[in-house]
Structure formats: structure tokens, C-alpha cells
């Protein structure tokens, strides 16, 4: 349903991540709810931690059937990070995530995730 084009897939803390989310879905009905956001989360042993840094402005009315819709975004990654980390017990993963809810559906019908790297300065 969505595609993602990052302008930079590797960003240092305090700098901007930019890209565009592209909607094109000729085969599905228009969603009644849609959300896209930039977040980080942990994965591994122990409780999951997560924080949404930026919500990409996105309304279902923007999405048009059979028509490609570009949704550009720019977000500044906080100086405090965290940075992307692949450790033995946990990982810290940064990603853009988008999901939609289709008509007559209460759950998220399509969740897509596009990871990117956050590095120290």
C-alpha cells in the first residue's frame, strides 16, 4: 500500500531524516484510518521500550484510489538519541512505520516498517 523513499537512510543524532511516503493502492478500498510515524524501539530480552519521535501528518482523505500520493516528511533526530544498536541482549531499532485500517475492520490491516540507521556524531 505504501512505499518509502528515504533521502538518507543513515543519519547522525541531531540531524534530519527526510524522505517521502508514497501511497498507491489500486487493489484495496480506501482506508478509514491511516497513521505513519517515526519511532525507535527495543527488541531482545527484557521489556520492550518504545518512543514515537514524530508523527507524519496523514489523513485518510489524502489517500486517493488508483492515484499515487506523495507524503514528504522531515524529522530531526534528537541529540539524545538513542543510536541504533545491535547488541547481544538487545537491539535499538529506528524505523518509520505506517499502518491503515480498512472499512469494517477494527484491527490494523497493513503494517509496514522501514528501518534506518541512527549513528553517533
Amino acid at each position, binding site marked *: 500500500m505504501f512505499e518509502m523513499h528515504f533521502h538518507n537512510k543513515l543519519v547522525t543524532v541531531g540531524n534530519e531524516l527526510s524522505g517521502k511516503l508514497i501511497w498507491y493502492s489500486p487493489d484495496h478500498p480506501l482506508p478509514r484510518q491511516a497513521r505513519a510515524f517515526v519511532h525507535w524501539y527495543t527488541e531482545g*530480552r527484557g521489556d520492550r521500550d518504545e518512543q514515537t519521535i514524530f508523527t507524519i501528518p496523514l489523513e485518510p482523505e489524502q489517500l486517493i484510489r488508483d492515484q499515487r500520493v506523495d507524503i514528504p516528511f522531515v524529522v530531526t533526530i534528537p541529540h539524545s538519541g538513542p543510536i541504533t544498536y545491535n547488541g547481544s*541482549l538487545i537491539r535499538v531499532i529506528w524505523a518509520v512505520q505506517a499502518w491503515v485500517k480498512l472499512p469494517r475492520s477494527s484491527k490494523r490491516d497493513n503494517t509496514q516498517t522501514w528501518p534506518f540507521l541512527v549513528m553517533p556524531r
Partner: protein
Amino acid sequence: MTSLRLDPKFALNPYLALGWQANPFALGEPVMAQSMWIDRGWSQAPAPAAQQLVQVMGDRGFGKTAHLRYWQAQTGGIYAYYPPGWGRFKVPPVQNIAYWDEADRIPKPLLLAALGQTARTRATLVAGTHTDLSPLAKLSGLAVKTICLPPLEAATLRVWAERQIQAVRLPAVSCGLELLPATVQEIAAIAQGSWRAAADELHIWAAAIAHQAVMGGRDRGDLVG
């Protein structure tokens, strides 16, 4: 100086180099845990509304919480966890069937009152505990069943680990990895019977193997091909 040329997708997710979506031993959704269940002889949940205490005993990491959660998914009912510190000062819930985890941390006056209520309402209480609650439960008028979970064995760990690996395997991607019996034996020995410690060690093992695969190494027996 060595120049490394890493595939960027492996920097984003090193487990892709093994044909995995993620580390198989990461903690996941409870739903996933249900499908990964290993029967150790107590898979059938206790009957609700039976005026009884079923106490599940075992050392830390032996699987008490896993059993309580597995049964709760079958029977419904409330689950209450008692943390160390002030968080343990909460009234234990009583329903047709209720699950109290780390029940030995419940302050005695609250415990006695809730056991009495369980008996009066002919409910079932399932408790994960490190100490024997049967004297207090019998005093309150409850029948008592005690389950003592045994320590983890290497053979069982291997079956579970293989299932975990299978669950994260990407379709149509060859894995090139074998979890060797010697590795499982070594991890089971380090874990000293604890599932939690074994899963931690397996997570570390998988992270190391993924790192090695990304770097192109082949010096551990677990990576083949």
C-alpha cells in the same frame, strides 16, 4: 588496515544474514508464546470454581509464569503479578479462577483474607510461588494441588530452540546454520535449569552467530555450508 564492506541491509538487521527476520530468542508477543509451547506434563489448565489452590513451585526461571500465562489463555480469569517492594501491597483478586504470580510476596494479612474469600466463593486460585502456601490454604478450607516444576533439560531446550528458530526463518532463504547438540548442552549447563537464563544465553549465541555471518566468518561449528 582492513576495510569492511558490509551490506547495508545487514547493518539494519544482522539476522537477515542468517535468513532470519529477527533474533529467535527475543521476547515476543504472548500469542507467539502459545504456539511455541512445550508440554512438560502440565499443559491442561486447572478447573475453575473448584475451591482449590493450585500452587506452581520452582526456582527462578523454571517456567512458573509461563504455565500461569498458558493456562490463563485457556481459562480466562484475572492475572496479577506481585513485584518486590511496595507494589506487592495490593489486594489479591478473586474470581472463578485467578492467577497470582510471585504469590509468596503478598503480605500475609492480604493473603489470608484472599484465601478465605477464595474458599467462601468456591473459586480456584493458581499461584506461582517460591514458598509452600498449602498450610495457609488448607487452614482457609481450600483443597491444595502442588506442582513442582523440574529444571530445564538439554533435550527439551533443543526442541524449543529449534521451534523458535523455525518461527523466524524467512521463506525461501537458506539458513546455513545448525544448532549443534554440544552448543545446547553447554547453554543448558550455564543456565542451571532456568529457561530464562537459557533463553538469554541462546539470544547471545544467536547475536554472535549473526555478527559472524555478517562479517563473513566461518570459525564456529554452528555455521555450516
